[in-house]
């Protein structure tokens, strides 16, 4: 069946260090992947996305890497800041059903230590 999971439930990093959050997915038909950030009491906030025809995409301080061979997705945050503290979800999607629904992973809590 479809599943998206995260390797680590909590990640603690020192302010200024780089963070890497990992995600595994199982649906090889997924063609779109997205990372969301969720702060306490708020809705998911888009960070970055990547299509399956790419293996890397960079944004401002964030990079998403996609390895379709092992069905692995990662989010790299450069120079992590206190404001990056949140829960991060990966999600996969495909247009097979025509809806582009998202299947979310469990979430990783990122704690930035001063």
């Amino acid at each position: 069946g479809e599943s998206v999971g995260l390797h680590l439930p909590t990640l603690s990093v020192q302010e200024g260090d780089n963070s890497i959050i990992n995600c595994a997915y199982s649906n090889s038909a997924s063609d779109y992947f997205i990372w969301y950030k969720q702060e306490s009491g708020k809705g998911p906030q888009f960070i970055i996305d990547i299509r399956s025809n790419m293996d890397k995409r960079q944004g401002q301080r964030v990079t998403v890497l996609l390895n379709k061979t092992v069905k692995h997705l990662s989010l790299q945050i450069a120079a992590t800041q206190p404001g990056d503290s949140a829960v991060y979800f990966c999600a996969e999607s495909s247009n097979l059903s025509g809806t582009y629904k998202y299947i979310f992973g469990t979430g990783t809590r990122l704690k930035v230590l001063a």
Partner: protein
Amino acid sequence: EPEVTQTPSHQVTQMGQEVILRCVPISNHLYFYWYRQILGQKVEFLVSFYNNEISEKSEIFDDQFSVERPDGSNFTLKIRSTKLEDSAMYFCASRGQGDTEAFFGQGTRLTVV
């Protein structure tokens, strides 16, 4: 910046009562979704809606749930007879034609007592 808005932010209801959660999607979007998140768990897909009908629904979305777009701006989720296990954050999302990114609202926290 356009955003998805949801009301109320928090709803407390007695078990067995009906609740309606309201959403105003981004105005030119055509695809609408409801997701829910039980406390401490992942966000789960409930239903997608396009062209005035449900396009896909999950196993969670049983006969107690319904969605409606009563006018050109609102998108509602109704739970007919709430159960304790319906307590969760409910997120509305919308997506534009040709887009892949969905925009989420801030959520409604539903507490069934």
